[in-house]
């Protein structure tokens, strides 16, 4: 083979890219379009102004990273609710098992992926923070 051919082939590819739309995003000026089924930060679903979660303990049970902490409480009507619901994002592996396990559709995963933070504590998402995203 002519020693020049591979070089030419390479340059051809390089050249062709100059006329294509760039893949690199100018983040944060440009934002990625996240896929429909992307598994990002969790959110607790709300219904009737309350978290839907009934503290059944299935998500902490199924979670392979053991990063969900639930503590159940009893409200005035003697119903069960999550007095504490915490996810440690440093340990979460975004498998989505919790969403699948939930019998009452109380938890979903949002498209939120910007999870960087300055302090370790800030990675532990409390119930309030998880509820914020409607």
């Amino acid at each position: 083979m002519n020693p020049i051919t591979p070089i030419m082939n390479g340059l051809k590819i390089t050249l062709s890219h100059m006329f294509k739309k760039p893949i690199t995003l100018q983040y944060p000026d440009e934002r990625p379009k996240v896929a429909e089924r992307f598994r990002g930060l969790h959110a607790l679903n709300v219904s009737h102004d309350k978290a839907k979660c009934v503290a059944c303990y299935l998500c902490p049970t199924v979670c392979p990273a053991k990063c969900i902490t639930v503590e159940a409480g009893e409200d005035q009507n003697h119903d069960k609710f999550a007095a504490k619901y915490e996810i440690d994002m440093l340990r979460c592996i975004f498998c989505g098992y919790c969403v699948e396990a939930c019998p009452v559709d109380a938890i979903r995963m949002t498209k939120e992926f910007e999870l960087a933070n300055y302090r370790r504590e800030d990675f532990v998402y409390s119930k309030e923070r998880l509820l914020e995203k409607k």
Partner: protein
Amino acid sequence: MVNLTIDDKQVTAPKTATIYEAAKLNGINIPILCHDNKLKPFGACRMCLVEVEQMKGRQIPACTTPVTEGMIILTSTPDIVKARKMVLELLLLNHPIDCPVCDKGGDCDLQNLTYEYKVSANRFTDEKFHHEIDYNNPLIERDMNRCVLCGKCARICDEIVSFGALTFIDRGIETKIGCEFEGALNCEFCGSCVSVCPVGSLLARPFKFKSRFWALTKQKTVCGYCGTGCNLTLGVKDNKVLTTIYDDNQGFHKGQLCVRGRFGYQFINSDKRLAKPLIRRGNSLVESSWDEALELVAGRLKSGNVAALATPRLANEEIVLFKKLMELSGSKDYDHSAGYAHSALTEGFAKSLGATASPSTILDIQKSDLLLVVKTDAYETHPVVGFEINMAVKNKGVKLYILSDKRGKLARLPDAKTLLHTPGNEIALINAVAKTILDEKLAGASAGSVEGFVELEKGLSAFTPELVSAQCGLTADEIKQLARAYAAAEKPLIIFPVGLAYPGHNAEMASALANLAILTGKLGVEGSGILCMSEKNNSQGAVDMGFYPEAGAKNAIQILDGCASGAVKTLFVAGENPLVSYPDQTRVRNALEKVDFLVVSDLFLTETAAMADVVLPACSFAEKEGTFTAIDRRVQHFKPAIQKIGQSRSDFEIFSTLITLLGGRAPVSPAAVFAEIAAGVPGYESMNYATLGETGQFAKVAIKPVFNSVSLTASKAESGKMALVTGSALYHCGTLSQYGEGPMHVCPEGYLEISRTDAANMKVGNDDLLTVTSASGSAKLKARVSPRMPVGVVFSPYHFSDSSVNQFWSGAAVTWVTLAK
């Protein structure tokens, strides 16, 4: 044994077995929902359907059908599976299926079977139930919407607990489980119904929503309350004991527990637990380091004039170490349980049987044919033994005689005969029974040759039934009938409780009762004999380890007097709370105030600990390892379920360190001490932690019967006064149960039980405050009008720090009191 074929497997089973039991014995699993090992077959749910060829392939319930020779049984044909699915569909038809919020989820028979049989849809539709849910009870939540009407709760409450609080009410589709007139649950709160309920209808409220069943670590252990020594499984999560778990394979009692064992565990993780050593500086106790506290204590121990009081809740190993520590301090003055609570064993049995333990065991109750229970309180002090008595009487037709100064629950058992005597006259009464046996020549053939027979004959001469009956408020015939029945029985068993609240003449009573057994020769035969039920979880162990004064040394009362007089300079109290539990509070307080240096090791800052110079935070049975010896010398090994709370240390560690500080050699581990025990304590030979295993072992009791004639002058009634008897309440054991939420929900404070007649005369009603005054003091207690009290007799339990009975009770068997509104 009969031969049969189950699922093409040739098997044998006992004649009395049902198909279900036969299958289980041979490792074949038949699903059940309404059946329980301990209960009589019922056949309500039809989950256990099987086909029997001889019955032309009809489907019949395995749990109620007895096996017969040559039966050919199929347990899971497609037809059976179909039928079981249908059963489940029908059960789920009106069922809420709210598993996510149902606390039973994960431990629910209905859920498990639904999963196993893949019932994911229902062919039928109907409305769900709308029964009202009982959230009000602090211990048991009742949600009849989830009930599958298996009847186990009602059956266990009737067959074993013999209370009968729950029953089926209404008919047809309306049928549900409830209390009489649909009222609130007001029962013993033993939780038996909760433990057998296969679904989430009956739930333990203290555990509600705390955790899922599968997230709990299950640690088998031994109950830390009374001497019955029930086996227990603790459910632990995040170093907290959250509940007790029912395991029907555990112990002689097959998982049955009483309210203390089932609902009284909260003291383990109580907020009130001491976390750091405290040292007195001026008037207050301030936190200190262990080193400082122990150095201080060691210094005092070295300087002599030391005495010790221990609670018989300590493990055997700890008691042995405590004794060593006392020896190193040059002291022989140590005792437990106020000195008298163990005297039935250490004096009574020691003289009469030549042993400091009971020759009979709890297992004998089911094998006996006549039970003679002295003091109906046996049920209150040792409830699970009470269950055994219930079962023996109700299922096996064992005759029951009760000698008591008040009626009680046992008296309500079928054909139970209660000899209700005036308080304080037990000994005379027992002697009269012995006298009748002698006079009517009912004694065993060998009785005459037993040492002390002549003295006994002489000693009993004054106790003719005629004389005694007048004094006891009985008829001579009643006494004679009891004597005849006792002598005629093939395997009669005597049971009597002792304890801190039963002072007076324990030693004499033990001897008098032993005389009966020796006279009739009813000792040493399985199912007969005599069983002394000492109070705390390791009372028998404390006696076996010899933690009581030898001749010449001070007993508990003398130790307290020594503190007051200055003869005792340093008092080491391990786990006892004498200020509340020993008689005569004034005397105890005076002693504790006077003593130079008071060391208390305890879980809590008890009234006694609050007076101490050094308080050492000890840990509970759930945090340490050791052995407890139950009332029938069942030696059981227990292991820690959780890490120690705060900086607390086990008494084992505390005593070890002190022994080292005093220049002795401390053993390395509880196991090493147990090896010493096995080598030195009679009956414990060849035991070690491995051989004890999960079930424990009986330490053999070798007896040498001797007649020990006892006589006591009758207690004289004081005119115009009431006879006060003290004792235990069913919901409590010692003063420890005050820190258990369960017992405190049901029985939060002391009370005075008074007969209806007396109450009517005094015009008092329930909860009216009464001032009780005796020669030694007075206190205010709430009245509880009760049909079980005879006229002129009042009863008060001793467990409570507030308005404790020892303010007016000085340790007499009967205290004469006046009551005022």
